[in-house]
């Protein structure tokens, strides 16, 4: 038995245990221990590691093998699962079970997701890949459907998307088999780049559609927000952190390994003006900008974060497709970074929800005095999400910006900057409307979130901070992934990058940052440290006289001025497109039913017989 077998068996057992006694108090502990053990096993596994099992189907071997690229994603998966499981361990899980929901299903589905993803990430051929892909999709569905009626509806909306994606991947699988005669990834790597241009384009379209749907790329992103946002808290964190990254994993395999980026650039559309590579880069860029600005309009914290999840994936794909050492490292590192702070943010939102019972940004405020630690988590989280130092989000975004500039993509760079602008605006809305300003009367009695929830949140932001200060820790695994994909490997130090094309040393930056804070503090206190403490209810008065019993919170119509300018640009085109598709589908369905409701089927039979005979006779 190889250590990969052990890893998968442990996951399988956790899944069974989750379904069997996930409602037991001890289960989160058990799962946590197993997940930790799995992380250790995975991290210490020599690569590439083949599984001891496998079978042959219709003459094609089906097997599993973990390489550096898969391990990078697998580690994040296990980590996200660990944080989510820990989060459910205490009060949150009790409240969940008390609400009439079934913890066993939640835990089973969560562990099932991990198993499915590990199978996907370790696949050694396209059949194994597809098995993992489908399992991931439907385990994801199971997890999404756990949160009650609204979640079920959101999950239902996911169904056509997931199936369309799976079928596109299956179509690609079948075509690669037809054209190359093999399904083994190691052989496909050699054979696929040699295919004719139109075949490559078709493969790209099929596989790409599948992966894009999973990733939530424009224009097939609509399912993701409600499905992720409505899931139960721990599940939302897990889904938001890693689930849709499976699409990125697929893109990595497809674009970099199978088709290769050079062949991708050959696939040109308008007389060489616009290549498939440009297309993907622009899709990624638009995915950064549009969902980010949609997030800006959200009034539900969960939806806001889910929209950002879509937007951030654009950075990852963009970095990967640029394909130089710096950019691809940035893109991959962003997967990890995003997982850390996104999970922390989601968990903090659900911690607030746990206490206040709402995620509506218009009905909260001022909670900083009641939930300071949760506030800290969210603060650090949004710094990461906005891509500012000292959090890790800065490092990955810096790498991507850097690569865009060096590789000469100024327009794309502009788009990423625009996206970052939108991110900053909307995360400020998030933290302001939740924690800042005046405390609402109904929230006077709120207490800090319980430790069972705080610990995973704090651990996640701590991780985000540490890897922000010392990105070299994460970059080790990134390099491994780059090597496994055949990308140029970015040399790095503990603090960042050291190369003639541009250096970054986070240790220095953070040092300078904190030194700056220190100097500021020295100046402040040296100048006497004069400050005046006012009541929380005074902080919006702005000179107006308001008595203490009148609450005044600028949360509704946040950014009213900005929205006055850019509001007309929101068209809801994608929603309309989806609705149009659904209507067309309905029309077709009615037409087809008409066939089965005909009054005189014998007549159509007669007509068809005559026409068929005519065809056969005078063909």
């Amino acid at each position: 038995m190889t250590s990969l077998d052990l890893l998968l068996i442990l996951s399988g057992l956790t899944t069974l245990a989750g379904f069997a006694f996930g409602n037991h108090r001890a289960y989160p502990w058990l799962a946590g221990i197993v997940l930790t053990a799995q992380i250790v096993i995975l991290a210490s596994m020599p690569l590439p590691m083949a599984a001891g099992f496998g079978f042959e189907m219709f003459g094609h071997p089906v097997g599993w093998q973990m390489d550096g690229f898969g391990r990078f994603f697998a580690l994040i998966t296990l980590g996200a699962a660990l944080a989510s499981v820990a989060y459910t361990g205490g009060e949150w899980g009790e409240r969940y079970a008390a609400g009439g929901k079934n913890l066993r299903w939640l835990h089973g589905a969560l562990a099932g997701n991990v198993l499915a993803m590990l199978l996907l990430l370790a696949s050694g051929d396209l059949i194994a890949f597809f098995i993992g892909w489908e399992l991931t999709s439907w385990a994801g569905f199971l997890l999404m459907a756990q949160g009650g009626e609204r979640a079920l509806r959101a999950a239902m909306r996911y169904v056509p998307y997931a199936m369309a994606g799976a079928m596109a991947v299956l179509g690609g699988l079948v075509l690669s088999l037809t054209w190359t005669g093999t399904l083994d990834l190691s052989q496909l790597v050699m054979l696929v780049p040699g295919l004719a241009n139109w075949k490559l384009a078709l493969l790209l379209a099929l596989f790409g559609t599948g992966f894009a749907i999973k990733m939530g790329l424009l224009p097939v992103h609509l399912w993701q927000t409600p499905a992720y946002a409505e899931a139960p808290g721990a599940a939302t964190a897990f889904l938001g952190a890693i689930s849709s990254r499976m699409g990125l994993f697929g893109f990595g395999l497809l674009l970099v390994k199978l088709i290769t980026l050079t062949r991708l650039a050959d696939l040109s559309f308008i007389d060489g003006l616009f290549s498939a590579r440009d297309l993907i880069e622009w899709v990624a860029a638009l995915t950064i900008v549009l969902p980010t600005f949609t997030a800006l309009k959200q009034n539900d914290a969960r939806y806001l974060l889910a929209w950002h999840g879509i937007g951030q994936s654009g950075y990852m794909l963009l970095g990967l497709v640029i394909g130089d050492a710096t950019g691809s490292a940035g893109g991959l590192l962003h997967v990890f970074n995003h997982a850390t702070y996104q999970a922390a943010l989601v968990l903090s939102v659900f911690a607030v929800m746990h206490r206040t019972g709402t995620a509506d940004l218009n009905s909260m405020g001022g909670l900083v005095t009641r939930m300071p630690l949760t506030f800290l988590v969210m603060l650090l989280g949004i710094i990461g999400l906005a891509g500012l130092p000292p959090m890790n989000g800065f490092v990955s975004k810096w790498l991507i910006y850097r690569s865009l500039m060096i590789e000469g993509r100024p327009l794309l760079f502009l788009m990423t900057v625009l996206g970052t602008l939108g991110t900053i605006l909307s995360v400020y809305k998030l933290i302001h409307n939740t924690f800042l300003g005046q405390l609402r009367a109904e929230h006077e009695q709120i207490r800090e979130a319980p430790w069972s929830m705080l610990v995973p949140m704090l651990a996640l932001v701590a991780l985000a901070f540490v890897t922000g200060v010392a990105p070299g820790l994460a970059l080790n695994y990134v390099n491994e992934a780059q090597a496994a994909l055949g990308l140029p490997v970015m040399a790095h130090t503990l603090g960042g990058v050291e190369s003639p094309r541009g250096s970054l040393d986070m240790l220095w930056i953070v040092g300078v940052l904190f030194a700056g804070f220190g100097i500021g503090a020295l100046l402040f206190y040296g100048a006497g440290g004069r400050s005046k403490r006012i009541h929380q209810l005074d902080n919006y008065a702005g000179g107006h006289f308001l008595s203490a019993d009148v609450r005044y919170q600028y949360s509704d119509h946040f950014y009213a001025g900005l929205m006055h300018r850019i509001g007309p640009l929101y068209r809801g085109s994608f929603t309309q497109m989806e609705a149009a598709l659904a209507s067309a589908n309905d029309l077709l369905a009615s037409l087809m039913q008409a066939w089965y409701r005909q009054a005189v089927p014998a007549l159509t039979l007669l007509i068809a017989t005559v026409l068929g005979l005519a065809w056969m006779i005078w063909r």
Partner: protein
Amino acid sequence: MTEFTLYTFLAASLGLIAIGIGGVILSRNLFRIVLALSIAEAGGNLLLVLIGFRHDAIAPIIEPGRALTTMVDSIPQAMVLTSIVIGAGVQALALALAIRARASYGTLDMGIMRARMEADINRVAGAESAASLHAPASSSTLLTERKA
């Protein structure tokens, strides 16, 4: 039998088939539909006998003492026997169904019966009839997340 008669028979059998099928389509009355079916089947059977016919032959029965001469093909004759029996069974069953349906619905009109059947099926299933949906069928799945 001359060539002409043979072709008359062919035309007759094909005509019977066409008339039968046309009758099935054009009748609304269940009993007439069954009649039309049996006409069409008669045409088919006639055709089947016809193809075994030989100009210069006798019926396929050996009479002791008579010299062996050419005989018509006996296999289509056996087949037509089978086909007639099948037709009889099916038509009797169809008649029985028509009788029962008339007892239940009080009519023999296919159009009315079909509508009643449709209504019955929908009633049993507790479903609205498809013709009277007030919203597209998919509205319960794809479009729910549109913000109201």
